[in-house]
Each structure stands twice: as C-alpha cells, then as structure tokens.
C-alpha cells in the first residue's frame, strides 16, 4: 500500500501526482532563484526588533524595580510593560526567528551569524536536539503514526488509530500542563522518554543529551529567575513574577500555534504502510493533507512564526518564511486544480478542533462518535487500532535532503 491509496486523492492517477510534484518543485525553484536583499532585510529587521524588545523589557523591569515605593502606578506599569515586551521578544525569537533559522531558511545568505548550524534559541531545548526531533523526525515523517513523535508528543492520544489506555483519561490535565510547561516539554522531546522507559535508548547518547539539556536549561533558569531578579534589588520579587509571566505567555502561545498545525479536523494521519516507497511527489501530498493553516493578518502570522502557513511551511520548510504568503497563492491554486483539500480556518476554530480531539480521544473509541472529529462527514479510515510504538532512528529511513540543513555534530549547545 502506498500513500496513493489515501482516499483524499485516490482520484488522482500516479502521473497526476507526479505532475503536481513537479509543479511544486517549480514553485520552489522560482522562490530560490528570487531570494534577494529585501528578504535579507526582513530577517535582519525581525532580529533587530526582537533584540530591541528584549533589551527594552529588561530596562523597563529594572526601572520599575528601582523606582520610589510611592510611585506605585509607575512601578506597576513598568513591570507590566516589561513583562509584555519580554514575552513578545521570546515569542518572536522562538517562532519567526529561531524556528525558521534552524530550518535553514536563511542559510542562503552565507551569514555565519544567521545560520542553521550555529543558531541557539531562547528556550530550554538545545538547538541540536531540536533540529533532530523537528527538522528530521517531524518534517520527514509528518503525521505518520509511530514515526512522527509530534503526534501528541508522547503524552496525548491524538489519533483513533492509537491504542487507548486508561492513562488517557487524564488527557485534559496533561494538556493543560503541557501548555504551561511547553518549554520544558519541548526540551525533553528529543530524549524520547518512552524509549528510555523501555530501556531501548543508548545510555551514552542519553547522557550526552541530558548534559546538553541541563547546561542549556540551567543557563535559561539562571538568567530569568536568578540573575535578573538579583539585579533588581528591592524589586526582585516583581521581576521574578514578570519573568514567570513572560515565559508562561510564550509557552501557552507557542503551544496553541503548534497544536493548530496538525491537529485540526481535516489534517490526516498516515500509517507506515502508506509511506512505503513514497516518492518525492507523494511526500509533498502527505505534507498538504497532514497540515492545517489558519487565517490572520501580517502581525498574527509573524507572531506565530509564519506557522499559519503550515501547509506551505511543510512543503518548503527551508524557504524564507516571509515568502509563504506569496507561495500560498500557488499552493491554493494547485490544490483547487487537483481537487486536494486545503485546510484553513480562523485560529480559534483550528485550536478548538484540536482541543476537542484531545478531549474526545481521552475516551475509548467506542464511547465517542467517530464522525464528530477529524473526518467530518467522511467515512472513517479502516486502519487498525494498534499499539504503535515509537521508532528509533535506526528504524527510520534516511533523512531527505529537501528538509533544510540539519546536523548533529555541527551545533553545540554550550551557550
């Protein structure tokens, strides 16, 4: 069985699928050839804005800390402003800058400071581990059960094809915890706790990864929860609170955006049989069927790291994010031409659907109505419910070259 059997495009012949793939290749080639100084200016502008926000936030908090006690309103205002700016800086850094730089979207600039091999982002997970768990495991095996660890992040049951267990009853709680502690969930993601629990993980590699996480996490915690509060003297408590709020804001926001990428209704899951002998064009198709966009203005798209263009991002993960709006015009046209669904909706609706799936799938399949989520009024796929364990790298096919720069040894997480 190959992906061509998935019903959304069984109406396409193998030739048509390859033709669609060639047209998407042409879109890529066109964008690659037209990258220019304006694109470079865009990422430089984003980085400058982010650094300005981060610097301004710290200054505002310090000003609030050292202001006279009787100027209550000023103190409060400065803290709230500082916290909001820091939250915005972290969101911008993690999403539109860090995530996209680490995909290699800006490697074409030959700028050693804005390069996937050297970027280290402002969150607890070491960049190197992110590039493995995200650029490779998630982007290559998007929505393939057992292969893509982003389906529920090993914590949530997100597909009916995943076996139910009583532990899943707690899903709404795990979900709330994941949202608030998202940074730390992501930090542990590449460790693959499931494999550690089953004693399948190479102890040497585990130690190496843990050391990296501890070093990076320690620096992150020290900065936000020790050093800046200490510098705030009398206002240490307020600064600490403000930093907690900023990190929390970033956590919840990035969690929401990420859950809108592959969990809204219409974003399909695949089985390993479906990706057997997958061609490049079929890989494109799987990305289109497995991803969901959301609508919004320019500011919302930037704040969400251009992941509102999730479909475009999954087709071309290493093309500059500021080009996604332009690329989406072509992708939409191709979807219409070939009769492929282009899943899109407002942000609240997309997240609402993800939340509904989390809640419904905390219960066994037989207790809930199949047709109510994911498949709308379409027939439910007949794939067997199976205990799909996670695969290790040795069981996964090799990385595809179109997924952007990724290297295990190139990036060090010492910062």
């Amino acid at each position: 069985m190959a992906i061509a059997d998935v019903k959304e495009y069984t109406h396409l012949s193998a030739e048509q699928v390859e033709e669609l793939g060639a047209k998407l290749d042409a879109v890529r080639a066109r964008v690659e050839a037209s990258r220019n100084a304006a694109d470079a200016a865009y990422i430089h502008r984003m980085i400058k804005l982010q650094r300005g926000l981060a610097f301004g936030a710290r200054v505002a908090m310090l000003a609030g800390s050292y202001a006279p006690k009787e100027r209550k309103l000023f103190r409060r205002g400065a803290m709230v402003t500082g916290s909001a700016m820091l939250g915005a800086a972290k969101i911008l850094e993690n999403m539109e800058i860090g995530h996209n730089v680490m995909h290699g979207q800006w490697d074409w600039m030959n700028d050693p400071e804005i390069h996937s091999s050297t970027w280290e982002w402002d969150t607890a997970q070491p960049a190197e581990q992110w590039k493995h768990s995200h650029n490779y495991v998630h982007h290559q095996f998007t929505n393939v059960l057992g292969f893509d660890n982003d389906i529920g992040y090993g914590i949530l049951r997100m597909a009916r094809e995943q076996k139910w267990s009583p532990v899943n009853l707690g899903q709404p709680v795990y979900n709330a915890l994941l949202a608030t502690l998202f940074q730390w969930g992501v930090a542990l993601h590449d460790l693959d706790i499931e494999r550690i629990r089953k004693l399948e993980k190479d102890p040497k590699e585990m130690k190496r990864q843990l050391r990296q996480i501890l070093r990076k996490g320690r620096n992150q915690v020290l900065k936000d929860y020790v050093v800046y509060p200490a510098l705030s003297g009398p206002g240490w408590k307020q600064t600490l609170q403000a930093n907690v709020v900023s990190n929390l804001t970033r956590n919840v926001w990035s969690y929401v955006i990420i859950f809108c990428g592959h969990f809204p209704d219409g974003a399909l899951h695949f089985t390993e049989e479906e990706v057997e002998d997958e061609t490049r064009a079929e890989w494109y198709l799987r990305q289109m069927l497995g991803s969901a966009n959301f609508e919004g203005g320019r500011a919302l798209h930037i704040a969400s790291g251009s992941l509102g263009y999730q479909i475009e991002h999954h087709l071309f993960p290493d093309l500059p994010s500021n080009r996604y709006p332009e690329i989406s015009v072509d992708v939409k046209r191709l979807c219409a031409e070939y009769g492929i669904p282009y899943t899109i909706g407002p942000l609240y609706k997309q997240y609402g659907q993800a939340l509904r799936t989390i809640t419904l799938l905390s219960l066994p399949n037989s207790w809930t109505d199949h047709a109510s989520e994911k498949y709308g009024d379409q027939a439910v796929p007949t794939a067997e419910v199976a205990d799909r364990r996670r695969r290790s790298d040795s069981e996964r096919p090799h990385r595809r070259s179109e997924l952007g720069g990724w290297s295990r040894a190139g990036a060090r997480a010492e910062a």
Partner: protein
Amino acid sequence: MAVRSAVRELDPTKQHRDWHAVRSLADKLTTPLHPDDYLRYVNPLWTSREFRGRIESVVRETEDAATLVIRPGWGWRFDHQAGQYVGIGVPVEGRYQWRSYSLTSTPRRRGRRITITIRAMPEGLLSDHLINGLEPGTIVRLAAPAGDFVLPDPPPAKILFLVGGSGITPVMAMLKTLTRRAGQHWPLPDVTLVYSSPTPDRMIFRERLEQLAAEHEAVTFHPVFTDEAGMFTLDRLDEAVPDWRDRQTWACGPGPMLDAATEHWEAAGLPDALHLERFSLEVGDDVGEGGTVSFRDSHKEAEAEPGTTVLEAGESAGVGMPFGCRMGICHTCTLTLVSGSVTDVRNGDRYDQPNEQIQTCVTVPNGDCTVAI
C-alpha cells in the same frame, strides 16, 4: 588555522583575561546570545562574535586595482604574518559573497587599520564590486588571517621574490615588513624582486617599489613589462638573477607561472628553496584517513590523502566546487554528505549522518565518502 575562540583562551595579557571575565559574566544576562549580539546595534564594530570591519577608504592603485583600508572591529589581533591572507565577505543581493585576499599592510597595532589590495578580474563581479562599489563606511565581514606563505623569522640572508600581476600583494607586505624591521634583530637581507606586469600603468605598487629599491641598497627591483618584453620565462632567470640558486624564493602569481616555477626548481634539484602561495587552510597531513571522494551528480571521483579537504579533492577532480573563505567561516562551500564520514579539521567533530550538511573546505574524509554535487 587561527580558530578565534582558541586564540582568545591563549591570550596571555591580564587585560584580556579581565575583559574575558567581564564578558562571560555579561553572557549570563544575554544567554543564549552574546552581549555582542546587542552591542553591535550600538556600533556594528562592537562585536567579536564574527570579525567585522569598516571600509575607511578605497585607494586607487592602478586603473583596475585598488587598496581597501579597513578598520577591523573587536577581537582583531593585528598579529598576522606578512604574506597571509584574510577572508572578506560583502553582501550582494542579500547574500554574503566571500573571497580571500592577501594583506598588504604590515602586522602592527598602531593605526588599527589593515589593507588589502584587489585587482578587478575580468568577469569577477565581486572583485569589481569591492573596488568600485564599496562606499567608505560599509561594514564587511572578515575572516582571521591564515596562510603559510610567510617568511621565517629571522629571514634568510638572500631572497628572491618571483611575482606576476596581482601576486605582488603578499610580497608587498613582506617587503614592507622586512624593511621596517631590519636592523632590530637582523640586517636587511639581500632581496631581489622580479615582477611581471603587462604595462607600467598596470603594475600595482610600481612607484612604491621603485622607491624602496632606491632607499635600500639591499633591495633590487627587476620590473618586467610583458607587453613589450614578452612573457618572463624562467630560462631568462639565469640572466636576470644569476645567483637565484643561492636564494630562498617566494613566488606568487598566476597558476601557470607557479607550475613553471615548480618544474624549474625541481629540475635544478632545489624544490625546498621555492615557496608558493596556496589559498588554503593549513591542514596537518595526519587528519582523517583519506579515501575516495565521489561527487554524485558530476559522476567524478578523487583520491584524497589524509589531510586533503573534500573541497581540494573536488577541485583536483575538476568538479565546480563552490567556495568562499576557505577557512570554515562563510558556509559558501556547504554541501550535503550522502554517505561516508568526514572530520572537521578545526575541532575533530565527525559528521557521519546521511544527508548531513558539511563545510567542504574544513572537512577531510575518513575513508570513502560521497557528496551531492
């Protein structure tokens, strides 16, 4: 190769150690970024994360050559050896283009400037941009000085410089340094310069060289204007410099000239007396295991000795390898490793995942490997 972080750690002065301590404290405030990542928005030169420089002036040397006077930013050590080259990266349509050029300034802190002299190559869009398109004030990227085309200290008593065209640039730095430092620890060696250029007008540094020869008895300058006198072939060397066999020779110029020189000195049984400029990293010949490097898309192969980089292997096989700084800074040379394993000569990191991105200029093969080009 001067890896910057290593240089910083080896820095002996107390002032630098204190400065380093302050910086690592400040790192705690800006982690995972460096303080420099913020400071560069105050002044673009206030960062030592990557070397930067500001173009101070562009001085025309000949119709098609100019000297760039550059003020390097933080972290620059001004301790290069005369004859070494630096990488310079300038953004062209959003993309940094990197080239390496010999430094023409002598190594010293005073003045805090370095100079490189560039000749616009026919079809060389970047060299043309560098000498005609750079406004003073432009910020450029720099890569640390490198190269083993240098004079020993103390220099040999008798030297011959054999130069063609823009090959004068490293030799100019050597001549300046020799004449400046002579008399401190050693006398000025007996120096002869044989320098070919099509016409007097196109000869870079002609007036300065004439002046040097006039000022110093030990310096002999043999200009050869090839439009009139024809190519300076090495069978004329006996006539021009009868004692060339007694001299240590440094040669820099077009490839065919260097090939001829290699042959000539080998024929004379003096291969060790000839030193050539090679634009490449100093890689020990014990790094990596060597092996056959296959270039997948061009269907070519090359045998690499230990210490031969993937880039050099590709060039020897006639593959159109992309390259920039040739020292691991600029990423222009990055290619996808399809299979096999390579080692980064700078830090010993091994790359052996299929489809890993490798910088071909600083990686050597461990056994057979395949790259996608």
